[in-house]
């Protein structure tokens, strides 16, 4: 068991710094397997380096986000694992 494996909800903090809508209840479709579900229902891997949200069905990386805290605060956001996001 990976100790850093958490619910997608655990990625809510860093994503809420970026998105102005509630991202954990948005539905994301995986580009690899096509499964669609709420971001909060996927798996989050949270570490000092950054956060990766993976598809609960196939483990594909849906969202990768890295935050730089030293110096000017910056984010790197990689969403290429997501086919589409459905927002309410």
């Amino acid at each position: 068991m990976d100790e850093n494996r958490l619910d997608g909800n655990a990625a809510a903090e860093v994503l809420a710094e970026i998105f102005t809508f509630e991202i954990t209840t948005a539905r994301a479709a995986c580009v690899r397997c096509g499964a669609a579900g709420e971001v909060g229902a996927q798996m989050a891997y949270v570490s000092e380096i950054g956060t990766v949200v993976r598809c609960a069905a196939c483990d594909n990386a849906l969202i990768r986000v890295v935050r730089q805290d030293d110096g000017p605060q910056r984010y790197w956001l990689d969403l290429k694992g997501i086919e589409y996001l459905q927002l309410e």
Partner: protein
Amino acid sequence: MADAPRKLAWRIGEIVETSPETPRTKSVCLEIPGWDGHRAGQHVDIRLTAEDGYQAQRSYSIASAPENGRVELLIERLDDGEVSPYLTEELRAGDGLELRGPIGGWFAWDAREGGPLLLVAGGSGIAPLMAIIRHRQAAGNEVPVRLLFSSRSYEEVIFREELESLAAGDETLEITHTLTRSAPPGWQGYDRRIDEEMIGEVAFSPDEWPLAFVCGPTPLVEAVATTLVGLGHEPARVKTERFGPTGG
């Protein structure tokens, strides 16, 4: 843009009260100027800053109902933790605490969403589920609720008296305890870790289309969620919140 973007900003809350729940847990009640309310199940981030500038940050679930204008957090003291010993031992009424939130809309429940609700908690994983139970009570909602609550011992059952008194006055709220390490003499309830047989006895059947919220240590959450899905519950209706390894 029509609406100003919602910004997740740090702010200072004031400690109004702290009260021990069990030997290792404490409720910390905060008044937060400008707080716009929360949904039952959401959490906040707490940030502590040392004199040398070192910062430590942790997430804590909100245990109070949205109807209660204050925000109550349940803090479990982890002896080797960086944050929880300070929060449980040093904080006093009148102190300020830096926090931001509410965070997370997925592991959350509004009374109008209905049920029935199956709540499964391990230890301090009761906190967001307590917010749900308190919210349901405050909203006068009568959705049937079953809580299966795993604790190490009777003394360590968090919110025990409040849960007893809520269940005593409400026949749609059923509470089942299991004690995994020690049980008092004459204990009639479960005294083992949550397993498939126990879930089968306590949970609503999948036909009743319950909404499940499971919160606690990762092994408990994964075992319960896997069992529920195996019993035929719809995966999208089993919401989980695992405690991270950085706790404390």
